[in-house]
């Protein structure tokens, strides 16, 4: 190991350590001793990571309230950053809240973190085209049965029994902290980007089922069969038309494919 490598490893450990170590490699002077100087880096490291996390997790910040500093401090101490972009340090926060004490006793925090992170990653996901009404109109009637709808690749689905989206909305719009609600049934949220705008909304179980089938690449006929299980065959087509209209309107579909007729 080179002396430069040894020095950098020692400095790294000194910055990460719980308490300020005495390093023989550093020199102080009449202005400030070595420990005071080292503490500037130790303090700055923690502040920077906490600040970046708070920016990346506005919903969680609102939900955690006065517990936020302790939460972020726990995470920063447990998880050094491994990515060149400070923003990606936050990638493991939801998993940390799932398993770390005492946070796992409040599962709404991990779900909130998952929504914040989904929004963050969808924000700068690769640009994709969006299926237009004219694309749908061009589908020959005989091709509809085998038509495959392709949802946006960046589309994420979050299942949670909590009203996490209310916290995110309140944080973005600087509204009062909403009351936490715990529903008896699991709820499902879609997170996607329409052109440059990130969108999220809850979906009913029939829409979730048919969208999951679409993501799996099942053809249009199978999607209609899926809806028939919820609404009966008579109502399925009309429900499908409503969903399809909404998906196209909100840029949720990337493209559609069908065999040449």
């Amino acid at each position: 190991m080179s002396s430069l490598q040894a020095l950098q490893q020692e400095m790294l450990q000194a910055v990460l350590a719980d308490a300020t170590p005495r390093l023989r490699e550093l020199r102080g002077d009449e202005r400030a001793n070595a420990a005071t100087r080292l503490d500037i880096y130790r303090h700055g490291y923690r502040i920077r990571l906490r600040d970046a996390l708070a920016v990346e997790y506005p919903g969680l910040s609102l939900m955690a309230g006065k517990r936020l500093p302790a939460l972020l401090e726990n995470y920063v101490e447990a998880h050094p950053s491994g990515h060149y972009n400070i923003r990606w340090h936050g990638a493991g926060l939801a998993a940390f809240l799932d398993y770390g004490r005492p946070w796992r006793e409040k599962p709404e925090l991990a779900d909130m973190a998952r929504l914040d992170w989904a929004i963050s990653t969808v924000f700068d996901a690769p640009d994709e085209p969006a299926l237009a009404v004219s694309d749908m109109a061009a589908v020959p009637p005989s091709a509809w049965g085998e038509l495959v709808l392709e949802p946006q690749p960046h589309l994420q689905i979050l299942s949670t029994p909590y009203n996490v989206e209310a916290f995110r909305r309140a944080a973005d719009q600087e509204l009062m902290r909403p009351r936490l609600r715990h529903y008896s049934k699991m709820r499902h949220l879609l997170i996607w980007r329409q052109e440059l705008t990130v969108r999220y909304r809850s979906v009913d179980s029939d829409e979730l089922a048919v969208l999951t089938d679409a993501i799996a690449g099942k053809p249009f006929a199978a999607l209609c069969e899926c809806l028939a299980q919820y609404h009966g065959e008579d109502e399925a087509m009309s429900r499908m038309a409503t969903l399809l209209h909404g998906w196209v309107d909100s840029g949720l579909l990337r493209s559609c494919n069908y065999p040449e007729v």
Partner: protein
Amino acid sequence: MNKDNSTRQLPYLGFGLGLRVEHYETLLENPGPVEWLEVISENYMIPGGRPLVWLEKFRERFPLVMHGVSMSIGSTDPLDQGYLKRLAALAKRIEPKWVSDHLCWTGVQGVNLHDLMPLPYTEEALTHVVDRVRRVQDALGRRILLENVSSYITYVDSQLSEWDFLAAIAERADCLILLDINNIYVSAHNHGFSPLAYLDGIPASRVQQFHLAGHEHGEQLIIDTHDAPIVSPVWDLYVEAVRRYGHVSTMIERDDHIPPLEELLVELDQARRLALPLLQAAA
């Protein structure tokens, strides 16, 4: 005033600003006297979305330069090839006038401290950095600029002055220098050296860009916050730098507590008022 600009070979851009989200709309609607922009490379090393759309708009209106914070040129970890590929891809996309980063290390053993950690000023560190600068320049297909960082610690092993270290790297690796005037002032105070000796020790032919910024006085040391107006002694040092290096593209770099654009334009005007008479007199 040293007029030897032969090594620079990059354009003089005049007076610019660091591009910040808070100024996106104002800058496009009414750029005022802003002649060029510096963008933080990592903010745009992303797959897609709104930031890149904004960047394209600014690219149409302003000369751009790229300034990174994560190259970690001094680290003893291997160069991050994924990072370099993304950096090169962004440079290819926006065709900046130049690409810069800091003379520092930001992490080791796969951990990133997200800070500009100073290097020991030793022959070993010098050799190490020169080799990596050459490899980065090969990967990017262009010379890079390295910026002096503010520092608070002194390594017992340092054998050179900071300016001798920076100058030697620039000469041996054939790279250019981004001088942050505020950082010289901050480090000079914190380590007790003469900022003028620093300026005298830097070869004028290597200086391509200036940063001007503000800082915060701690109890014992000056903390480089880049979040406040430029103070009078830093302006004085800027004048000395212009006297020595001549036409060097200058910009105001505010990283936090971002004020309205007008406030930064006042500082940019002050930079012009101080520099232009010296440049004209030397012409």
